């Protein structure tokens, strides 16, 4: 199943001008635990998806009380909030690569 079919909220936003944070929130325990325990969301996989190195992924967090997973990554150099060639001031459309992730 695709991540976009399991999540209730799948969003991206700046966490300050130099970081993008990706939130995946669920409205039930089952899909949340399924994604959390699937082993799909690794630093290696996220790095590949966003064209960065695995050690650059700042964190992948699961918060059971929120039924939520958060991933924080740096914005590419020259793409910080407000940079001349930047495309996404708020980092609001950077969740797109996550939508079609296949979750076993």
């Amino acid at each position, binding site marked *: 199943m695709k991540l976009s079919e399991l999540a209730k*909220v799948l969003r991206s*936003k*700046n*966490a*300050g*001008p*130099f*970081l993008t*944070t990706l*939130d995946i*929130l669920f*409205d039930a325990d089952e899909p949340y635990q399924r994604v959390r325990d699937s082993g799909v969301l690794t630093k290696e996989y996220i790095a590949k998806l*966003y*064209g960065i190195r695995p050690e650059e992924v*700042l*964190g992948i*967090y699961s*918060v059971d*009380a*929120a*039924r*939520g997973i*958060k991933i*924080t990554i*740096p914005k590419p*150099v*020259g793409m*910080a*909030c*407000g*940079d*001349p*060639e930047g*495309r*996404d*001031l*708020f980092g609001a*459309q950077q969740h*797109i*690569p996550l939508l079609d992730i296949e979750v076993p």
Partner: protein
Amino acid sequence: MTEEVRILAATCTGHYLFPEESWGRGLSWNPDAIVAQGTTSDCGPSYLGLDAPYRGYAGIVHGLRTIILSAKRKGIPFILSTGTPGGGNRQLERSLGWVDEIAKEANVRLRIAVIPGELDKEYLKQKIRTGSKIRRLIDTSGLPEYLSEEDIDKSERIAAQMGPEPIMEALDLDVDGVITGRALDVGLHMALPLKRGLDKALAAHMAKTIECGGLVLEPMIFDSVFAVLRKDHFLVRPTSPSAKCTTVSVVSHSFYERADPNREENPGGVLDISDAKYEQYDEQTVKVSGSRWIPRPYTLKVEGVRLAGYRTIAICGIRDERMISCIDSFLEDTRRYTEEKLRPLKPNEDYTLIFRAYGKNGVLGEAEPIKQTKSHELGLIIEGVATEEAVADDVCEAAEYFVLHMPYPGRLSTAANVACPYSPMEYGMGPVYVYHIWHLLELDDPCEPFKIEVREFPRGK
């Protein structure tokens, strides 16, 4: 120590509604203060660089009027940040001009503690000279690791996110309220609880929960929220009857725009909410407890911007599918012609030419997984950026000419290639700023860089 502190939390960025029903309910619950944030760095460095406002301001005036007059009538303080959005001094003064009009219109006298949020460059340089190491908050090549006097000189404007401490001091000055420039949003909400001796961790967690008003609600609405902070917990609820706080809505809000959902660095400590407990207290209210505060040396976040150049853009639309099918090679050709025409200027040294093809990959750029667009029309932004404004104009104008007239394989429409919606076709976007200071200044006295001014409104003639 007080038993509890009750806060009515709105925002005064100009975007919130203040529906009479919910605002009236919030006031009827006897708040000890009305608190609202009105500054942000979210909208990018250029607002701070230009010290420019959002273009619309009616909403900001409405927010200031509603909050200030409601608080005055209740005899409680208002605590708000303004100078929307960057928090520069000129925008702060603009807001204070509206406060003056509000006081005149309503025929009320206001005594307000004003705390500007810009930092004096000389003050910061003096800190460096006397041994302060001002380190970057994020490890990125876009920021110098430690701030130098040269970086400070290069900066157009520097603001600091003041913490709760100057506000606490200002509340002691027998004022109707406190108005700050750039400030830490949670600091505004923490000031009164800390002054009354309540727990710092819970105060910070409450502040974090209510700082964006209705964003913590289910459904999210553009309205105020109400919080009660007690010795060992806080309660949060909407003022509106048509929304609620749920444990999930409250916990999820801790995700919002934060790098780490469990720990948040604040001036003087880290708020750790990894073991916090969330309970549904009643249908609309959530009770939170168990937050922790880990003390750290006091740091002030400093934000500064420098001029990166000037930008000129042109906007046009492409409807001919023959052109869309070869848009990549068409834009490559256009770039080559433009570079040729602009010689001896060097691309990526003397100027940057940017094409944004919306409908193709304008949003994600190279990361766009769909390589062949299925759209029957594209929106194209042609953009020149250069240190000199005249060069930015030349880049944009030259590229636009080639976009209009250059041939492509299979072209039938030999008169011109694209539809331009506006005349003039090029728009000078003015200076472009980038963040080059996003640093932490260690301080022994959190109030040291800030000057509190008590001002009376309406102003005398």
